[in-house]
């Protein structure tokens, strides 16, 4: 695990293991609070990052490359980038999740994406030129 710090930008690298999720949550929670966010927005940010990181680790397969979680605070927003070297997510981030259907059918899976899209102001995914998955989430600071 390693961290780089440059003004309002911090980066965390973790092994692709689920038992590091709590570390990621604490990291994002502290940074969000320092960036001026308050509850319950902090909770929303932490949950969203947890879901995205968990998704990256779970779908990382046998890839042992570390995940990179970068957080950046501007005057008006928090931008979080989660990058992994696993296989492509395909269309998973485009699929809409109908919460009512999910609840009515008591589906066990699929809530993570709904949480990210509900709790953050924007969620974007791209497959980078160097074959990495990059999820970028933004939360605007409410004055």
């Amino acid at each position, binding site marked *: 695990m390693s961290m780089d710090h440059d003004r309002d930008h911090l980066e965390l690298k973790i092994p692709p*293991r*689920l*038992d*590091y*999720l*709590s*570390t990621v*949550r604490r990291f994002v929670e502290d940074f969000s609070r320092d960036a001026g966010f308050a509850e*319950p927005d902090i*909770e*929303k940010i932490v*949950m969203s990052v*947890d*879901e995205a990181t*968990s998704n990256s*680790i*779970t779908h990382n397969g046998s890839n042992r490359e570390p995940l990179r979680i970068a957080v950046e605070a501007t005057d008006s927003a928090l931008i979080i980038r989660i990058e992994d070297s696993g296989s492509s997510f395909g269309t998973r981030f485009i699929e809409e999740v109908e*919460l*009512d259907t999910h*609840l009515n059918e*008591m*589906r*066990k*899976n699929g*809530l*993570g994406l*709904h*949480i990210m899209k*509900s709790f953050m102001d924007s969620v974007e995914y791209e497959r980078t030129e160097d074959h990495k998955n990059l999820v970028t989430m933004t939360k605007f600071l409410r004055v």
Partner: protein
Amino acid sequence: MNEANDQQMWKKFSLSTTEVEAGGLSIQKVRIQGYLDSSTFPDLQEHLNNLLQQGTRYYLLDLEDLTYISSAGLGVLMGILREVREKKGDLKIINMSEKIERVFSLLGFSRLMKVYSTESEALESFAHPQVEGQDEVPEDRF
């Protein structure tokens, strides 16, 4: 430090189970402590599945010491709820913190799982299921 010890160091989840009785029904009261995320949910899932296989149909989840829940944890609860209701049983929750209550409310889980302020209220509802004992979980707590 080997990998097994390393994993154990970061894992902060535990649960305990006691049997309680209400209205002639045998109820498993499960107290969950710590966080319920993608790394810890398998433990809860295994425990609840074992109880289910032993014939348990009534569950009372005490969430007083639950500090965090992710979609993985919610998925376990939803899965068990579905299975016990198929067997004409039920699952109820007590002592939910404000933080967890907000998550439940925003994601609509309050509609599925009854939440009670006290154990006595929850047990009363098991014993007399026609009595409405659910506290209203306010919408828009976020």
